[in-house]
C-alpha cells in the first residue's frame, strides 16, 4: 500500500553579520577556539546583550522575500537549560512573538510544477558554542566561538510530502538566502542546518501520525537520505504492528548516521519568559519600505525573466539562476556578448567546468573578458576552437585581454578565400586516396580534409568558408 508522508522543516540560517547577534565579537569562521568570544559571549557577571541591528535587518529582509507578516513588535525570550556550551544557562531566542510571521515559498517540485509551502514563522536567536568530546581524554573541550552567532530559524508548515520535496525546499531556501545576501550558504561550515519533523499516515484524510524529529542535518544529500530512511523505518514499524514513539534523533555529521538523543540532551521544560535585558524589537513602516526597495530580484522572478526576455530554455534558466553569483556573472557575460544563448553555453560549459576543476569561489576570468571572447567568435574573428584555447589562456592569466591575445598570437581566423582555396587545392592534390573515397560516396572523409586544413592553418581557418571551398573543390574533382 502507499503511505502519506508528512514533513515539516526547521531551517537554521546563520546570518552573515560581521559581529555576533548580542556582542561585538567577530562572527567570522574558523578562528582558534575561544579566540572570538568576548565577556558577553562568556556570560561573565554583569554582561548584557545588545541586539545587532544588522541581524534585525536581515531577518526582516527574509520576511519580505517570503511575503510574510512582519509584526510591528517582536520580543526576545530566554530559553533556559543547562549545558556547558551554553554559557548563560539560557539561550536568547524568540518564542511567542517572532520577528517574522506567516509567509510562504513557491516550491518548484522535483517532478515538475510548483506548490506553495506555508512558512509558519521565522525567529531570531543566538547559537550555542561547541562541545568537543573526542580530543580531551575523558574531559570535554568547550569552544565558544560559535556562541552568540546570529541564527534565523525558519519553520515550515508540515506540507512537504517526500524526502525529495524536503531537499528541494531546503535547496530553495538556500538559494533564497544567498540571493538576499543574508547568509553565505556554506553548509560545510555550518552556515545552514536543518531539523526535520517526519510522520507517516495511511491516507491524507487521516489525522497526523506520531512524528519524530531528526536534528542537525547539514547537507541536502543527508537530509534526503535521513528522511527516506526514517520514513521507511516508521512504515516498517507500523506495518509490523508497532507504533512510532515521539523522539528526537541526532544526526552525527562525522559518522553520517542518526542516533536517538540521550535524555540528558533534552529538556522537557525550557521555562521560556521574556528576556528582561532587551527591549521589544520595533519594525516601523519606513524601515520596512526602505528594505522592500532594496530587495534584489528574487530567484523565481529572475528565472522567469531569463526564459521570457533572454529566450533561454527552462533548463538553462534554472541552471543559471540556482546560484546568485553565477547568475550575476552570466548576466554580465551576456550583456557584453550581446548573445544570451551563446553566453549561456559558455558559462554552463567551459566556465563552469573550469570553476569546478579549480574549486574556485570567485572567477579569475572577468565576465567582460568572457563576453568579449564571445563577441570575437560572433564577428568571425576567431573560431570556436581557437576560442577554447584563448579561454584557457585568459583563465591562467587574467591580466591579458582577448584582443591582446588574438593579436599577439596571430590567432585571427583565415577567411581569405583565395589563400584558403590554394591550400584546399594542395590538400586535394596530396591525398588522392581520400579523394577517391569521397568520390565513391564516402562523404564522411570530408572531416579528414578539414582536419588537414586546420593543421595547415594552425586552426585559424574560418570553418564555414573552408567547408564551402572544400565541397566545391571536391565536387569539381568528382565532376571531371
Amino acid at each position: 500500500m502507499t503511505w502519506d508522508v508528512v514533513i515539516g522543516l526547521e531551517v537554521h540560517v546563520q546570518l552573515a553579520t560581521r559581529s555576533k547577534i548580542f556582542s561585538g565579537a567577530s562572527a567570522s569562521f574558523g578562528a582558534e577556539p575561544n579566540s572570538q568570544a568576548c565577556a558577553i559571549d562568556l556570560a561573565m557577571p554583569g554582561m548584557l546583550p545588545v541586539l545587532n541591528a544588522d541581524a534585525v535587518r536581515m531577518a526582516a529582509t527574509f520576511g519580505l522575500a517570503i511575503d510574510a507578516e512582519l509584526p510591528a513588535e517582536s520580543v526576545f525570550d530566554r530559553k533556559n537549560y543547562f549545558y556547558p556550551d551554553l554559557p548563560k544557562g539560557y539561550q536568547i531566542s524568540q518564542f511567542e512573538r517572532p520577528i517574522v510571521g506567516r509567509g510562504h515559498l513557491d516550491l518548484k517540485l522535483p517532478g515538475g510544477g510548483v506548490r506553495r509551502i506555508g512558512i509558519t514563522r521565522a525567529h531570531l536567536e543566538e547559537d550555542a558554542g561547541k562541545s568537543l568530546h573526542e580530543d580531551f581524554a575523558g574531559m570535554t573541550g568547550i569552544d565558544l566561538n560559535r556562541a552568540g552567532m546570529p541564527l534565523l530559524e525558519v519553520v515550515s508548515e508540515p506540507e512537504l510530502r517526500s524526502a525529495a520535496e524536503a531537499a528541494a525546499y531546503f535547496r530553495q531556501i538556500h538559494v533564497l538566502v544567498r540571493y538576499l545576501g543574508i547568509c553565505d550558504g556554506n553548509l560545510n561550515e555550518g552556515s545552514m542546518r536543518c531539523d526535520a519533523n517526519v510522520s507517516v499516515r495511511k491516507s491524507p484524510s487521516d489525522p497526523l501520525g506520531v512524528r519524530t524529529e531528526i536534528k542537525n542535518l547539514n547537507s541536502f544529500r543527508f537530509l534526503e537520505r535521513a528522511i527516506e530512511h526514517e520514513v521507511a523505518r516508521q512504515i516498517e514499524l507500523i506495518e509490523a504492528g508497532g507504533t512510532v514513539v515521539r523522539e528526537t534523533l541526532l544526526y552525527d555529521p562525522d559518522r553520517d548516521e542518526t542516533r536517538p538523543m540521550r535524555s540528558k540532551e533534552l529538556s522537557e521544560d525550557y521555562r521560556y519568559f521574556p528576556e528582561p535585558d532587551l527591549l521589544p524589537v520595533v519594525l516601523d513602516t519606513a524601515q520596512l519600505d526602505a528594505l522592500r526597495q532594496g530587495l534584489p530580484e528574487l530567484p523565481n522572478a529572475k528565472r522567469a525573466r531569463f526564459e521570457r526576455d533572454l529566450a533561454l530554455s527552462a533548463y538553462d534558466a534554472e541552471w543559471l539562476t540556482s546560484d546568485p553569483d553565477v547568475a550575476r556573472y552570466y548576466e554580465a557575460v551576456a550583456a557584453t556578448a550581446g548573445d544570451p544563448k551563446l553566453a549561456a553555453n559558455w558559462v554552463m560549459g567551459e566556465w563552469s567546468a573550469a570553476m569546478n576543476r579549480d574549486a574556485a569561489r570567485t572567477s579569475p576570468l572577468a565576465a567582460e573578458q568572457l563576453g568579449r571572447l564571445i563577441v570575437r567568435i560572433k564577428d568571425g574573428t576567431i573560431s570556436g576552437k581557437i576560442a577554447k584555447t584563448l579561454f584557457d589562456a585568459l583563465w591562467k592569466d587574467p591580466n591579458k585581454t582577448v584582443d591582446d591575445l588574438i593579436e599577439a598570437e596571430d590567432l585571427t581566423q583565415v577567411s581569405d578565400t583565395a589563400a584558403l582555396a590554394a591550400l584546399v587545392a594542395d590538400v586535394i592534390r596530396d591525398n588522392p586516396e581520400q579523394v577517391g573515397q569521397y568520390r565513391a560516396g564516402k562523404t564522411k572523409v570530408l572531416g579528414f580534409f578539414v582536419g588537414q586544413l586546420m593543421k595547415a592553418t594552425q586552426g585559424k581557418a574560418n570553418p564555414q568558408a573552408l567547408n564551402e571551398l572544400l565541397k566545391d573543390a571536391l565536387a569539381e574533382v568528382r565532376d571531371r
Partner: protein
Amino acid sequence: MSDFRTLVEVASALDAGTISSVELTRDVLSAIADAKSLNAFITVVDERALAQARVADDRRAKGLAAAVTGIPIAYKDIFCTRGVRTTCGSRMLANFVPPYDATVVERFDAAGAVMVGKTNMDEFAMGSSNETSYFGPVHNPHDPNRVPGGSSGGSAAAVAAGLVFAAMGTDTGGSIRQPAAFTGVSGLKPTYGRISRYGMVAFASSLDQGGPIARSVRDLEVLFGVAAGFDPRDSTSAELAVDPARHKPIDALRIGLPKEYFAALGDRRVAASLDTARRWFEEAGATVIDVSLPNTDVAIPTYYVVASAEASTNLSRYDGVRYGHRCEAPQDLEDLYLRSRSQGFGREVKRRILTGTYTLSIGYFDAYYLKAQRVRRLIRDEFVRTFADVDVLLTPTTPGVAFPIGAVSDPIEMYQQDVFTVGASLAGLPAMSIPCGWVDGLPVGMQLIGPHFGESLLFTAGDAFQRATDWHTRRPGRKP
C-alpha cells in the same frame, strides 16, 4: 579618624587646598582599618586608592577637577571593577576578578573619584539585613548588635560610620533605601534605566538599579549627575537628559501621602517621625494630600515572584564551567553542576532560585509569573495615575528601625521589610530615603517617591527638608 563632612563640603576643602586628595585618602584608609569590626568592606585597595588620589591631585592642580575629583568613595561589591576582585557577597565569586569595569565605575573613574574599596552586601543582593553575605554580617554603626539593612548594608554602614563620603549601591526592591534608613544616611534609587546596569552583577534585570548613598541630598544629586546617563551597552538604559524643569519651589510642591502605606505602619514612634516631617512640608508651604494606592498589599508577593523568576535564570551562568566556584574533582557534568552550585550559593540564594524556577515552570507560569506581570502593570498604572495629582509621594521607608542581628529568621517575615519599597521598584520609579527622626537611638527614614525620570523633584523636596532639619547630620555614638 572618621570624617563626617558631606561630599560637597569636602570638595570645597579640596578646591580651597586645605587638604589634598592623598591626605584625605590616607585618613579614609586608616578610618576603614580602625573600623574593621563593622565588616563594612570585603576588599580595600590602599595602594590603588593612593595612586588614584595622586592623579586626582595633579588633575586638580591643572584646574581640571570635576565635582567628585579626589574624593574617596566605595562601591558595593556588585559593581565589577577591572583587576579588583568582585564577589557579590558570594562564595561563588569569592575569587572572581573581572577584566572590565562597570559603566558606573568607569564614569566615576573618568570624573576622578578615588575608589578605596568594595563594600559588603547580602549575597547576590538577596536580603534585607546583610546577614546573607558569605563574608559575614555587617554591623550597624549606631548599634553593632543591629543590622545595617540590606542588601547594600556595607555601603550604608561605611557612609554612616564616616569611612567614605559616598558609596554606590544597588536597589532591586529597597536595597539602597532600607539600609540608608537603618543607618541614618541618604540614599537614592533612580528611575529604572537612568544608571547603566552594564558590569553590575544581575539579580533581577527588570528591577535592578544602581544608585548613590551619601550624607546629604545635595551629595546624592552630585553623585547622580556623575553616574546617570545613556549607555549603549545596556539596552534598557534611557536616552533622556535630566530635566531641570522638574525643579519646583517647595511651596508649589504637591505631596501625596498614600494611605495604604500609613495604615500598614505598625510602629507608632516611626509614624510620629513621619508625621513631624509631613508637618514640616505643610509649614514650608507644600500642599499635602492623601492619596490611595489600593494594590499596595500585593506588591510584596508580586515583587518576589518577578524578582525570583529573573534571578533563577540570571544565576544559571554560575555553573562552575568558565569562572567562579568549581567543586573538587567532579565525577561528571551533573556532579559538576550540582556540587559547584550547592557549595557556591547560600541558603537565601538557593531559596530564590528554586522559587523562581518553580514560578516559570510549565503549569505554574500562568498562575505565578504571568499573573505577577499583570499585577505589576496595575501597580505601575496606579502610580502613574497618582502622579497626575501630586509631584512626590511621602511614605515611611521601613516598617521599623534597625533590628538586632539574628532577630529575623523567617524568610517571609524578612520579606516584609520591603513592604514600602517594592512598589516604586515594580513601577520603575525614582525613590529616595532620607533621615527624618530618631527612635531608641536609631535613625528613622522617610521615603520620597517621584514620577518616572523626576529625580530632580526628589532633590528639591529632600534638600529643602535637610536645609531646615539636622537628622542627616547626626552621627553614630552621639545620641540626641
